[in-house]
């Protein structure tokens, strides 16, 4: 991943590099988890989105989009909305069956519903998980949707037969270059706080923040599909074989990766994130890209900055 440098703008004394974040086509599903209390809904959602930071190593990227009030859920209970992103619908279907089956079906009081009812493409989830019911399961068909009732020791697990899958975008990102680790983390946390309020996006990495950004492949280990982004590692500045992208004074870099259901959602998240990250101790805001060769979605930081201003 490289940072294509051009003229910079400044926001509250922080340079915003004239570059772009490069993102990719993905497929997304939205799962609505409900439970008897907000705490149990959140527990199930956290379990479901665990170990789902990057499709490279986890086969799926997932995160909690929002916590839902009872009037926002199909069954009138508290809930959580989870977004999952994969490369294709078939793979995403497998991940849904695995994750819902292992983390939501097993979690006390939960039920599971499709959050993309308008999506034309449907994948079977409840229709496969019903087999856990060992033919003691039953179904209900209401308002054009089939729901499966799977008997469990606690009572019944209710899940929709199919879930919608739609085209989405993954890999929008920001790089926060700061004078030290604390400043970088504070800026990233501030950005994450506002970006998480945007609907239609998730920040799949721990706490929404990545400290180990990667480049494609590796210079020395040929079988690696990704390795450390040496150009942005402060400790490698000046090292032979490393072309550092770090300006003087930068000693810590953090990245925020954004996956979204559509381009406007990612633009919105990135623009509020850039604005929030411009704070003391931050030297520069940049973004990662591959020269525009790999992903067809480009988010230019200066355009996003002007959106944030308006």
């Amino acid at each position, binding site marked *: 991943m490289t940072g294509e440098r051009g003229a910079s703008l400044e926001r509250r004394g922080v340079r915003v590099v004239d570059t772009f974040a490069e993102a990719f086509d993905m497929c997304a599903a939205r799962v609505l988890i409900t439970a008897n209390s907000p705490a149990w809904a959140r527990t199930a959602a956290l379990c479901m989105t665990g170990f789902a930071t990057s499709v490279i190593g986890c086969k799926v990227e997932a995160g909690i989009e929002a916590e839902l009030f009872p009037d926002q859920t199909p069954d009138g209970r508290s809930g959580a909305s989870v977004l999952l992103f994969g490369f294709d619908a078939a793979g995403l279907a497998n991940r849904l069956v695995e994750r819902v089956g292992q983390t939501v079906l097993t979690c006390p009081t939960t039920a599971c519903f499709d959050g993309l009812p308008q999506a034309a493409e449907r994948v079977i989830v409840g229709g496969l998980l019903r087999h856990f019911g060992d033919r003691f399961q039953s179904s209900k068909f*209401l308002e054009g949707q089939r729901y499966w009732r799977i008997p469990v020791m606690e009572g019944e697990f209710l899940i929709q037969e199919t879930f919608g899958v739609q085209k989405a975008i993954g890999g929008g990102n920001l790089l926060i270059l700061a004078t030290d680790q604390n400043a970088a983390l504070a800026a990233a946390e501030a950005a994450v706080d506002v970006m998480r309020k945007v609907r239609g996006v998730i920040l799949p990495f721990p706490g929404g923040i990545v400290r180990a950004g990667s480049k494609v492949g590796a210079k020395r280990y040929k079988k690696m599909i990704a390795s450390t982004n040496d150009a942005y590692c402060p400790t490698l500045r000046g090292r032979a074989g490393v072309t550092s992208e770090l300006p003087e004074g930068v000693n810590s870099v953090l990245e925020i990766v954004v996956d979204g259901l559509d381009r406007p959602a990612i633009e919105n998240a990135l623009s509020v994130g850039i604005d929030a990250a411009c704070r003391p101790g931050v030297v520069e805001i940049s973004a990662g890209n591959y020269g525009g060769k790999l992903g067809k979605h480009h988010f230019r930081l200066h355009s996003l900055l002007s959106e944030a201003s308006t």
Partner: protein
Amino acid sequence: MITLTLKEQPNVPLEAEVLSPDAMAALANDAIRALPVYLGKKLCRVDDFFAVEGEASDELKICGDARKVKWIGRGMTCGRITIVGNAGMHLGAYMTGGAIEVSGNASDWLGGEMTGGLIRIRGNAGGQVGAAYRGSRIGMKGGTILIEGTAGLEVGMRMKRGTIVVGGMVRDFAGLEMRGGTIVLLSGAEIRTGAWMMRGTIVSLKPIPLLPSFLYASTYNPTFLRLYAKHLGTLGFTIPYEEQDGAYQRYTGDTSIPGKGEILIWKSVKA
């Protein structure tokens, strides 16, 4: 809107399946008046019995006591029929879509073997609501029937899918040989409810006499009923589901088949 006003009560049942948006939506007033109806086996015209106003609409309004007018809305796929008065047998039979509303009562075989759409009866209904016709294996396969008053025998007989809600008391054999779907009894039912049911759900908000072939399973608050409560709430019917208000006793049966159906009986914490 096309308005049909009954001139006089026919002396024998009038078979009028042309009283449907599908038959009238594309017709001019003259053509509507000339549509065929059968008085017994005698072929007549619509305007022999109805004063017809309007033309070319998928909204029909039928005024008068049409309790002897059969097959209104038979097989309708879309549009709306409003009956200001009563309706005769087989109202909405085989319908697949659209909506029918009756301000008065409806007779037997309401929504017989329907597969979609919505029927709402403000008054009472007769027997065999949403049922399978004699010799037929499957009754109602979709749609919703809402009855604010009482209903007669064999409600939902052999129904496979869809929802029937009855506000008043229901007579014997509700859910007879039921294959699936949901019947909600807001005021309970008389005897032999769920006899020979294979699948499906009967919800009763009042205690009902159960056949000995139904076995108690558990007391709980099914999550799926929350979806029904929300859906039916939009249609003006309230069913309880909150834990603090009570719970449902689940009985499985009919074990004489043996069936996999269920009867859920609400038990309020106040009782």
